[in-house]
């Protein structure tokens, strides 16, 4: 029992637990849309692009949330506009942009003396060092993100599944996409202290990808993903405490372990299930190919 209670006798571990749980839950829910819309790369870009903002606020001794938000806001806007025009190859444009922003952050911080230590904390997070204020800020922003997400859940679902229908219904699809990118940005910003710039994407992508393997229902996927995010955060922190491992990275590896288990044993989408169905010679219903049924029409073409 002391395995679980001992760490909690320390105030910093209590705060770390709370912070990691909120971050795990919010990332798990917002991440569902990142995974379903194939925005993993854009999410990574946003995470890197907020870095100069983090560095500048850190150097000015302000909350890193403010600087990160300012850079995240403009990056999200830039990404939204770039992905709207069909002429730019979207992913190269985003790649150029986010690498440059990240480098800018590194250059700024390298002007500081003793920058290597600071760099480590900023890149990989420092969940064991969060203050009461940090936790309160995380609670506030996390609640706001979830509130907006649930208020627009119907519209986000519609644009993610069938943006054609959304447009034909006159929905402001561009602004809905922007709103989603802003929510992802806010999620990244509040998660920076837990896992840092480099690993944040794992918290956003891994729990939803795991949940998707286990269910075919969006709302169950969101609930499951949030649960997995919270459980991975708690378990990761306990493991890192007892074995003296880096907290953020251990949380990420715990989430990865869940993913690998689900990948193997998931009832419908898992590797084992596929293998069993193949052995039995069953056609797997989830692998219906439209082409099977297509009548090739003799189409007059020029």
């Amino acid at each position, binding site marked *: 029992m002391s395995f679980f209670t001992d760490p909690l006798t320390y105030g910093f571990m209590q705060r770390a637990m709370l912070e990691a749980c909120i971050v795990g839950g919010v990332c798990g829910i917002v991440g569902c849309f990142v995974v379903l819309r194939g925005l993993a790369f854009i999410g990574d870009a946003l995470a890197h692009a907020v870095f100069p903002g983090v560095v500048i606020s850190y150097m000015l001794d302000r909350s890193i949330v403010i600087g990160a938000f300012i850079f995240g806001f403009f990056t999200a806007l830039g990404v939204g506009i770039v992905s709207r025009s*069909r002429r730019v190859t979207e992913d190269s444009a985003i790649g150029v942009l986010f690498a440059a922003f990240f480098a800018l952050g590194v250059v700024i911080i390298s002007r500081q003396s003793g920058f290597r230590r600071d760099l480590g904390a900023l890149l990989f997070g420092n969940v064991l060092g969060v203050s009461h204020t940090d936790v309160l800020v995380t609670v506030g922003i996390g609640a706001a993100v979830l509130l907006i997400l649930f208020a627009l859940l119907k519209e986000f679902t519609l644009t993610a*599944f069938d943006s054609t*229908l959304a447009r*034909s219904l*006159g929905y402001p699809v561009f602004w809905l996409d922007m709103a989603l990118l802003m929510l992802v940005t806010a999620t990244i910003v509040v998660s920076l202290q837990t896992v840092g710039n480099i690993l944040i994407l794992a918290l956003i992508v891994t729990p939803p990808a795991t949940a998707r393997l286990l269910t075919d229902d969006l709302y169950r996927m969101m609930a499951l993903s949030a649960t997995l995010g919270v459980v991975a955060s708690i378990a990761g922190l306990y493991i890192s405490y007892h074995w003296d491992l880096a907290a953020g990275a251990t949380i990420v590896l715990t989430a990865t372990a869940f993913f690998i288990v689900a990948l193997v044993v998931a009832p419908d989408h898992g590797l084992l299930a596929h293998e069993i169905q193949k052995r039995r010679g069953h056609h797997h219903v*989830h692998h*219906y190919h439209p082409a099977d049924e*297509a009548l090739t029409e003799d*189409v007059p073409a*020029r």
Partner: protein
Amino acid sequence: MNADANGALEVRDLAIGYGSTFTMQDLTFEVPRGAVVGLIGPNGSGKSTLLKALAGVIPARRGRILLNGTPIDRSSGEIAFVPQREEVNWDFPVTARSVVTMGRYRRRGWLRWPGPDDHRRADAALARMGLEGMGNRHISQFSGGQQQRIFLARALVQEPRIVLLDEPLTGVDSANRAVFYETIRSFAAQQVTVIMATHELDEVPHLCSHVCCMDHGIVAFGPTAETYTPEILRRTFGGQVAVFS
């Protein structure tokens, strides 16, 4: 202004394109209320593009699209669009009933969720499409023809004034086609205008009251009897189609 008050869809001088180029321009035609229009033409002749412009999926660069003499109000859901099956993410975690219920979202408005009445309508529409009791299945578990019928059910619950269908019969077997024809006829009977892009030339005279022949623009538009003629079809398809009279 011959179109007001009779519910006609009026397209005036419409130009469509991305960026600075027009893919089509000077599109002008008028579809009477309750008509079933067959949109025919060679591959790449602009059928899908025109449908998407009418649906508001791609922006009109110039010109007007009027319904009953006023600009279309898409936000009331009066235009239902059934896209080609390839354009939808069939791995998305939703059930058939959820997809059909999406047709009700606009009626509910922002910040409000579909209620029991919407779900009842969705189930009734699925039943009408021959998919009774299958609403809780994930969309990837349906065959191609069934997936198209789910979309048709979604168009039904939208209670539209115009239904746009992009090649709805591609990959749909003959058993599944009957319910399609029946639904399209019932739309027309309720004075809902249907515009359908199709490669099934043989079906056009039975199903369509009007024909719109396209080849990077409109070659001909009019009642089927006057427009579905060997001469016009030859002009549309560049002599590469066998025409039976």
